[in-house]
């Protein structure tokens, strides 16, 4: 009982400077300050809930699970894109929290980013198992066997919760609207590297387009910011390696290359007359 009293005690007053934007009344976004009584263990999301319950019920954001699983509450908090629900205010260790919606996404209202384009890009890489015989998926003849080693190739990338933090941290996304983005590229590799999948060729057009995988220059911010340890930077580099060596093998085996190599072999020119027989 005493313990629970201790945890409820206000430890600090923290100022929440929150970006506000209402498309119906505001011409441009503005910052508004709230003072929040912070108790031990309180997350940024708890702080926002406290503001909504006690100070301003018009504040809008997206959240659901409160435990870092759904990926809804990603925000730009004190200079880093992170989940509001798995960051405790006292761990951030500051007297002022500046909270903005995720950068590189349009703002719908206050802290709510627009994920329409983000999910559309996810759709384009076909995030599902593709089999050459499509009917196999609905009526499988037997199990799609997969060894633990084959599972280890992609399981890390299957932990993605689609929170959008990687895109907010990515410098390429800051300037290139058409860049497929770390999340979609990682999901592309998640399926391409799955031993049960046979759809690598179908995904090629999107993954290796002009605004695809080669626009990543390994800044690494996506992997640093990812709250689930998915490591998009690794997935993208592995995708590049796969594409590079596959293309190399393809070119080595292509008939056009074989022809060129054959033409390099020396053949006597019939137009040049043969030298006379040696006299000595």
């Amino acid at each position, binding site marked *: 009982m005493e313990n629970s009293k201790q945890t409820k005690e206000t430890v600090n007053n923290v100022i929440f400077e929150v970006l506000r*934007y209402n*498309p*119906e009344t*505001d*011409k*441009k*976004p503005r910052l508004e300050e709230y003072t929040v009584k912070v108790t031990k263990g309180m997350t940024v999301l708890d702080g926002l809930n406290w503001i909504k319950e006690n100070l301003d019920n018009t504040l809008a954001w997206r959240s659901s699970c409160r435990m870092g699983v759904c990926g809804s509450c990603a925000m*730009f908090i004190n*200079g*880093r*894109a992170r989940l509001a629900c798995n960051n405790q205010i006292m761990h951030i260790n500051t007297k002022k929290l500046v909270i903005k*919606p*995720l*950068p*590189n*996404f*349009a*703002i*719908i209202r206050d802290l709510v*980013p*627009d994920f329409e384009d983000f999910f559309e890009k996810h759709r384009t890489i076909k995030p599902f198992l593709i089999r050459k015989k499509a009917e196999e998926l609905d009526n499988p003849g037997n199990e799609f066997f997969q060894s633990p080693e084959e599972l*280890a*190739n*992609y*399981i*890390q*990338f299957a*932990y993605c919760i689609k929170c959008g933090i990687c895109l*907010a*941290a990515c*410098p390429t996304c*800051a*300037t290139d*609207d058409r860049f497929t983005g770390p999340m979609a590229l990682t999901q592309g590799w998640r399926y391409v590297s799955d031993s049960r999948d046979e759809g690598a060729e179908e995904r090629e057009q999107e993954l290796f387009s002009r605004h695809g995988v080669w626009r990543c*220059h*390994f*800044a*690494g*911010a996506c*992997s*640093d*910011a*990812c709250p*689930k*340890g*998915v*490591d998009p*930077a*690794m*997935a993208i*580099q*592995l995708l*590049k*390696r*796969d594409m*590079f060596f596959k293309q190399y093998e393809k070119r080595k085996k292509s008939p056009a290359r074989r022809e060129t190599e054959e033409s390099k072999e020396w053949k006597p020119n019939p137009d040049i007359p043969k030298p006379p027989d040696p006299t000595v």
Partner: protein
Amino acid sequence: MASTPKNKLGIRGWVCGGRYVVERYAYIIHRISGIGILVYFILHIFVTGSRLGGPEKWHSTMSFFETPLFKFGEYLVFAAFAFHALNGLRLFFNELGFLIGKPARPVFPYKTSIHHQRPWLIVLMILAALFIVVGGLDFYILGE
């Protein structure tokens, strides 16, 4: 009703997009040094092209560039080259999927590809710093 703010960071986002790993700053310096070397290369073509105008034209052009400002610019090009070449070496291997570790089930605290390649970044940056310092000595003290 106002149009929805796009909230794109733009070029500002390359430099001040947030507090993330040092590789993000290596990315922007790599980009700036690359552009610097390209601009120098174009200028270099024009400068050496002045030789076509005869020895007098060549000497007058060269005397124009023999000022402390251009000498410092030349040193900056050298520094940009040292950084760009060594960081580029790291990127060459990393972007082909080498020196970044293998995929593994994520366990907190997460160890990512960035941590795997970090020692290479540190070694190459120390080398780049050495080249830049030795180059500076050669430019301003030993080469005089």
